[in-house]
């Protein structure tokens, strides 16, 4: 299969062994990838951000807990409506596709995920999750650091690919090799003399003005990648139906890119609107339905195209929400939340116990699993990376994979 060879070449495998002098393999990290099997090198991670603070308690519901129903007379999900998945847990009624994945052994759920001294600001807490460092003023993202330390020998300016308009901090790094785009149709350019002049105007000529050099690099990358992205989407084989909404359609683009063997290791897609301070019930139902149907289509699509084994999906949100509802049928910012894992070798089931609603900190849950343990496990076991180096310290590996 030719496309596979193409992908490996882009991911640096064939190209490196053919062109890089042997001695580099012993001296630097350049060929670090060579210790991995070909299958491992093909692996892809899809990070899904639920922006605004997803209400974990109404997503994966401790439905037998009376304290839950007592704290949420209006916002809580009735027992008879929730989708039971385990003795202690049920899923939100609008997440039928997630339940199917769960039943099929394809969905892992991590409960009570958070970090010490939780910050309840959207922005600070998002930064903490994206940097995976608790100290302020960290300017790099955890995947950005992974690209830097583990993918040095890989030839690709689009190791990361994000659908959205504001570049995610997760990919941030001084030598950022990630691309952010809203709509792939934008990458269509005038041919002829205007197009040629435009290419020339965007050739990199370092000036010492950091902002100008950054713009030149982005401009040059954009024009270089335009054709590749257009081609990837043109030859798309996907036949699965996706809902006609932004998040679902973004996942469809990601599936097309994965199937087209573009040189990308990590994808990033956002679903926003989870900041449900008022009239939560209807809004949250719509969001979870989009999440569930989007992921359902995505997993089915990858499976039918034969790419599910090499794809892992992981969701995160900056925080969960306050246990007790407020007066406007909403919930305020809270602490620990839930993460979903799907695809690849995910070990289905619930990782982590029930949230303890009788032991709260100022009305908020106490976290039991540090999110950096989840990242560490993904880095170590899925991306075969040096997790300690990327995260700065050692975190417990969790049994998330079979």
């Amino acid at each position, binding site marked *: 299969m030719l496309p596979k060879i193409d992908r490996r070449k882009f991911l640096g495998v064939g190209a490196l062994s053919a062109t890089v002098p042997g001695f580099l393999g012993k001296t630097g990290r350049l060929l670090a990838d060579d210790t991995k099997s070909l299958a491992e090198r093909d692996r892809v991670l899809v990070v899904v951000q639920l922006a605004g603070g997803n209400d974990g308690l109404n997503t994966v519901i401790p439905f037998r807990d009376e304290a839950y129903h007592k704290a949420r007379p209006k916002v809580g999900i009735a027992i008879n409506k929730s989708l039971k998945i385990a003795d202690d847990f049920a899923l939100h009624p609008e997440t039928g596709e997630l339940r199917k994945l769960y039943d099929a052994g394809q969905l892992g759920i991590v409960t009570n995920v958070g970090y010490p001294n939780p910050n309840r600001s959207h922005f600070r807490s998002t930064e903490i999750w994206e940097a995976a460092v608790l100290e302020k003023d960290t300017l790099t993202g955890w995947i950005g650091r992974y690209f830097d330390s583990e993918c040095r020998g890989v030839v690709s300016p689009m190791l990361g690919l994000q659908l959205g308009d504001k570049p995610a901090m997760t990919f941030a790094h001084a030598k950022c090799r990630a691309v952010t785009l809203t*709509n792939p149709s*934008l990458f269509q350019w005038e041919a002829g*003399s205007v197009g040629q002049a435009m290419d020339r105007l965007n050739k990199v000529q370092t*000036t010492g003005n950091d*902002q*100008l050099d950054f713009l030149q690099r982005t401009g040059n990358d954009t024009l270089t990648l335009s054709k590749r992205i257009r081609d990837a989407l043109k030859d798309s084989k996907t036949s699965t139906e996706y809902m*006609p909404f932004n998040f679902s359609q973004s996942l469809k683009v990601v599936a097309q890119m994965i199937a087209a063997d573009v040189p990308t290791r990590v994808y990033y897609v956002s679903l926003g609107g989870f900041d449900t*301070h008022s009239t939560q019930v209807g809004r949250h139902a719509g969001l979870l339905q989009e999440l569930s149907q989007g992921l359902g289509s995505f997993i089915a699509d990858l499976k039918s195209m034969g790419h599910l084994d090499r794809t892992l999906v992981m969701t995160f949100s900056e925080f969960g929400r306050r246990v007790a509802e*407020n007066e406007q049928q909403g919930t305020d910012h809270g602490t620990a939340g839930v993460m979903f894992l799907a695809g690849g070798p995910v070990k289905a089931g619930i990782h982590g116990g029930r949230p303890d609603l009788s032991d709260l900190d100022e009305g908020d849950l106490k976290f039991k699993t540090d999110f950096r343990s989840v990242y560490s496990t993904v880095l170590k076991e899925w991306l075969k990376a040096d997790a300690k180096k990327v995260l700065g310290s050692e975190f417990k590996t969790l049994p998330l994979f079979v």
Partner: protein
Amino acid sequence: MKAGVTWDAAAATHLMSRTNFGGTPKQAEQLAARPLKDIVAAMIDEAKAAPSPKAPAWVREPWVNTERVYPETTPAERMENHRKAGERQTRERNELRCWWLDEMIRTATPLREAMTLFWHGHFTTEAKRMFVAQPLYTQNAALRANALGNFRELLGAVTLDAAMLMYLNMEDSDAKKPNENFARELLELFTVGIGNYAEKDIKEIARALTGWTLDAPEGTKKKPTVADAPRAFCRDGLAPTFAKEKHDGGEKTIFGQTGKFGLKDVLEIVAGHPATAKFIGSKMIAFFGAVDPKNELRDRMATAFTKSKGNLADVLAVLLTSHEFFAAASRATLIKSPVQLLVGSCRLLNLDVTATPSLAQVTAAMGQELFNPPNVKGWPGGRDWISSGTLAVRYHLPEALFDGKEPAGFEPIATDRNFALPADESARRDLLKRLKEFDAKRREERKKDGFKVAFDSAKVFDGPVPEKAGALVDGLLARLTVVAPRADTRATLVEAVDKASPADPVKLACRLILMTPEYQLS
């Protein structure tokens, strides 16, 4: 202060590129002939003295809710009212974006619009979370009226404006369980900034701010709506009104002070907090672009803030006359915001332009939809403006401005889902079909006016158009304030103008300049 400022035409060009959406070489010469201090003082005075722009025609005082549900309202009427209100809101939002863009493009006091834009990204409201358009206008008017006034007054006006009351859920926040949304953002994003408060302060402020709602103006005769109607279907008006019975009248402790505080006390405390002076200073520095590694400029601005009890004109004057602002490191290093890029291009190219929804979509596609920031923090600015996607939109700008064509991909790939679809298969299909039709109609509505833009080469130069390619390119680079082109940039432009011997060399050169990395900087 210390190091002085060399005030010359280049410095004047720099100043105008940040405060006026740019200025011409001729204007720069004129400014440079007078002292910097006088120029800045005059700019601020003119901005403050200019009359307010006329409100859009659809703004009504008092606003009337056409969606109220009374006992005799039939379900069919209710649906129809809702549909009409939705259409009205979409139309008004489009017109509002155009209204402001037109104002920015035409205004004789661009500094006032720049400051309004600054506050628009500070005191935010997301249009996508609002169900009526009028508060977006009244908030904007409040920002403009107080843009260079007193911070405490600005904060008061914004806090009790319908937009903020609705957006951050202070409307109907009740003593029984106060809503913390506004209280948190008030501290984190609007005044003292993160790191300068405790969770306890948020909870106490939320208590102090309970009891506010939106109602018809006092004395209006009201007809009771059905019981338990959601707010959108029973709200009688947009006048901020205090409902004492819902207010928590007890003692609160905020930043160490204890008292039976209410809204005014909270605003006094936070506006007068020393961290607020620094926080506002920092944000202005980032917006107008000055390199201030040791925070010395910020501290001088904070001192001016405190000394003048929050006089924003004084604070801005410190910034615009500082040596940091005019230092080499501060020049041509600020990534233009999409609005600055579009408005600046229209002004500097002297385009004959009337804003249309398609023109407004240009900045949205670049990541800055007016009245609809990505979240409550506003637009982060700087390098966050630039990704492959948004830079591609910037490089498509000439097609919009010179050819009047909207390139593909200026809208997101699809819309967001705002509610759950019904479980029943046929009801779901039916709803999806209607959503699709609705969206097609929305797009058609937005695109129906196309672009109303005309380019005239003769209007780009103050004098005659230079004949030689080199002089023409140099003239245009100066006109479009590209102050430090790379050698290759100039060479490529000259060659393109020479080689193509086009019918309109000015237009070709302008088109190409807009597609350079340099043009993205001010």
